[in-house]
């Protein structure tokens, strides 16, 4: 895997905690909310990276969690999409309590392997489970900012597994990307499907991957993010289908409390 890290790694000498201010909040689904943050000293990020967020209570008690960045590097703001975990500690605060104008402490960006750069040639195959869509959305958004010629170099397909249609995060934006032929978006619903649903209605399996992914001979760059069960099975199936392990990058992304 080390061979695959070709790019230079822009990591600042020290990741300092800083206070970001909440610019806006958007309810994406009944359980997921996007916080758009203005970060005063932000060195920029790469699509796929995350931040550490720290909450400190009045008496000094603190809690930290990691959240993937949903915004493209060029967006100027840092957007985080947080899935609410009912028995969690940090996500209910971020989903229920935080308002525009509040501050949150964060440091980042963090992570240098599960990242995509426009300079990486070849098709881009993204597989998301649940809120695992978040870092992949940063990649889709970054690619969407590129000009037509650059986009033509990187055809992209997204296979997104969600529980129900209402749980699909960024649904309107994904529909727009598909309608504009900017990306092929394939949804599969693992629980309830709406009447007349013509898409997949099961967990991601080998047949689905064979139908949706590029053949391994096209050497797609693959990014898989979601709960462990999905990531483990999808990554194993892709290797069985002939994809080089070094081109299958994974990130486990269970909701964190």
């Amino acid at each position, binding site marked *: *895997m*080390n*061979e695959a*890290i070709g790019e230079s*790694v822009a*990591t*600042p*000498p*020290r*990741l*300092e*905690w800083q*206070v970001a201010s909440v610019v806006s909040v958007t309810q994406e689904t009944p359980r997921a909310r996007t916080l758009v943050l203005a970060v005063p000293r932000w060195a920029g990020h790469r699509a796929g990276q995350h931040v*550490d967020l*720290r*909450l*400190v*209570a*009045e008496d*000094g*008690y*603190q*809690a*930290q*969690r*990691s959240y993937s960045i949903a915004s493209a590097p060029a967006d100027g703001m840092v957007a985080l999409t947080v899935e609410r975990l009912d028995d969690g*500690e940090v996500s209910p*605060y971020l989903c229920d*309590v935080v308002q525009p104008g*509040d*501050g*949150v*402490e964060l440091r980042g960006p*963090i*992570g*240098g*392997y*599960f990242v995509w750069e426009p300079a990486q040639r070849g098709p881009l195959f993204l597989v998301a489970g649940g809120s695992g869509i978040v870092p992949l959305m940063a990649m889709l958004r970054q690619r969407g900012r590129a000009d037509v010629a650059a986009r033509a170099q990187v055809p992209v397909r997204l296979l997104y597994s969600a529980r129900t249609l209402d749980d699909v995060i960024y649904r309107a934006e994904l529909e727009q990307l598909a309608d504009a032929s900017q990306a092929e978006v394939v949804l599969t619903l693992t629980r309830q499907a709406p009447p007349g649903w013509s898409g997949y209605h099961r967990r991601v399996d080998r047949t689905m991957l064979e139908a949706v992914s590029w053949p391994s001979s096209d050497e797609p760059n693959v990014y898989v993010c979601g709960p*462990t069960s999905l*990531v*483990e099975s999808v*990554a*194993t199936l*892709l*290797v069985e289908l002939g994809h080089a*392990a*070094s081109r*299958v*990058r*994974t*990130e*486990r992304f*269970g909701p*964190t*409390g």
Partner: protein
Amino acid sequence: MADKPFIARGFHGRRAAAPPGRLPPGQYETRDFPVLSAGPTPHTSLTAWDFTIRGADDASPSVRWSWDELQALPHETPTVDIHCVTKWSKFDTKWEGVSVDTLLDAARAAGVANGAFVLAYCDGGYTTNLPLADVTGGKAWVAFGYDGAPLAPEHGGPARLLVPHLYFWKSAKWVRGLTLLPNDEPGFWEQLGYHDRGDPWREQRYRGDP
């Protein structure tokens, strides 16, 4: 952290009931066993598996154990707390493995060139660096059993390094050997901005942390 804390308005926390002194700063206790890895899980058959300790210098002899030879060494069954840099900690995890001391003693006897650091290397290309002092003195194991069963592949089976006093990325999954080095050489995550030592009690998560 030297930074003066910013109080999050209206945040009270849930105050997990962890026993005092067991949860390093910034960590929370989980009862699950989350899985984190950068790529697909490698699957190496036990007949093809071996474990090798070698010196930095190609001229140095190396020592190699087959799976059966490793199993024939004395087993230990440490019960330890583990701490992942992604913030979860898990208490009282039960492992079975061979002490790295046992392996290094054999390497020394065989004349493998000594070093002050080790680089663990693994199936799938993963590496991680550790000071020798962090894998000696009863602090590290090559573990192949977890909770009374063979270690599952997604958790690093057939065998992983177990160095519980450091963040868990140092406990390299799918480990196949150690290279003894005179100087510290950053491994996979360490090259990507993570801390060279990774002591959870000092919160050494990323490069530049104290």
